[in-house]
């Protein structure tokens, strides 16, 4: 391979590739996966936790899901410390918008703004790209519920269902088969958990290894971001018959 062209992020290889960006995506391919599903009444984000230990204080922080603003949240896959920097940047951008316009920042604009930041690291400065992929889930009054996926190159697009992290290609093709338009949040949760259970490496699925979050509208029209509690998640897994080793077909 053209090894001499990989050390600098800001140059193309002779074949027209940006190796550092590709290597960043490799790093994410080894990280815990995350799946996002756009439902008619909300957006679902499910993540696979890689760091599992009885000693972890799970009630105080999340590993995969982060709230960016009242109407926007994201799931991450990749290097956590890189993700923290970008999440903070996203939060500042969202507040800066609200400071100027006294309105919540439209979801796509936030994603675009963050991706512009990421793109900078692929073109100038000599710094490596961020080793993180995001799934952004949110609601705004222009386009309702939306799901976006972005990667280290700074590209992004809107999705009905998407997967990032380990085995994301397998997850993506499963989603392609089973997703249907106008899916409800409940069906979306079931689909996400089912796909994740099939693509996760571990032999059995427990609520300790997963994180589930949903974006929805409450009856008065206010956007709600909720992370599912472990007890509820366990109940969901039992309900959908996913707690055993996945030898039972759907």
């Amino acid at each position, binding site marked *: 391979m053209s090894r001499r062209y990989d050390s600098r992020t800001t140059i193309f290889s002779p074949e027209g590739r940006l190796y550092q960006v590709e290597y960043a995506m490799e790093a994410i391919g080894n990280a815990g996966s995350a799946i996002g599903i756009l439902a008619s009444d909300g957006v679902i984000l499910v993540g696979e936790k890689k760091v599992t230990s009885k000693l972890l204080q799970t009630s105080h922080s999340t590993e995969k899901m982060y709230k960016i603003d009242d109407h926007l949240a994201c799931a991450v896959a990749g290097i956590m410390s890189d993700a923290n920097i970008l999440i903070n940047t996203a939060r500042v951008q969202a507040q800066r918008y609200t400071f100027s*316009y006294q309105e919540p920042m*439209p979801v796509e604009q936030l994603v675009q703004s963050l991706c512009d930041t990421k793109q900078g690291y692929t073109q100038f400065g000599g710094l490596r790209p961020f080793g993180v992929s995001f799934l952004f889930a949110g609601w705004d009054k222009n386009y309702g519920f939306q799901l976006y996926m972005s990667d280290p190159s700074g590209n992004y697009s809107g999705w009905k269902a998407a997967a990032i992290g380990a085995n994301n290609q397998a997850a993506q093709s499963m989603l392609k088969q089973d997703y249907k338009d106008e899916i409800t949040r409940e069906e979306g949760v079931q689909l996400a958990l089912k796909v994740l259970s099939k693509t996760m490496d571990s032999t059995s699925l427990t609520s300790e290894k997963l994180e589930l979050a949903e974006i929805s509208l409450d009856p008065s029209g206010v956007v709600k971001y909720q992370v599912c509690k472990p007890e509820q998640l366990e109940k969901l897994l039992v309900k959908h018959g996913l707690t055993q080793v996945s030898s039972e077909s759907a």
Partner: protein
Amino acid sequence: MECVFGLVGDGFALVAADTSAVHSILVHKSNEDKVMLLDSHKLLGASGEAGDRAQFTEYIQKNVHLYEFRNGIPLTTAAVANFTRGELAVALRKNPYFVNILLAGYDKDVGPSLYYIDYIATLHKVDKGAFGYGSYFALSMMDRHYHSRMSLEEAINLVDKCIMEIRSRLVVAPPNFVIKIVDKDGAREYAWRESIKDAEVSAA
């Protein structure tokens, strides 16, 4: 002395402004349009230092256009009002703009709205507002005759009453006014009220 005033009616908002451009004792022109169309559904009526007025309103207009080009959706009237106020607030402690603004707009979900923004970055959402010496007369007339959800005919009547009052009671009253409205069909010029027309230059 310059005068801008406006009000919100039933499904529309309107802004009226005098059209004089004055320097000391000289009237440069009496058909200067001080109510700018920001986008399809917004009007910005401004009064104050002439250079600041033109420069600041054009700056706001171009930023509103830029947002729409970048993001594919227009800004709401409230968002433009807050953005404008923010720009005035930042400039205030460095190099203030001496411009007073009445921003009128129509949004599908909210209906018509009017924002009062003065040169020291005060922002108020109002049903009626006025700037300049003419405001003493316009506000009094509007306080007496305004009610919510006025029809266009009633509102124009009230505007004409205000203009009459300004013309008759203000010592160096501007002779001509322009009235612009914005409703669900967009922002547009409604009428001029001229008591002095610039003399036509006869062809040689």
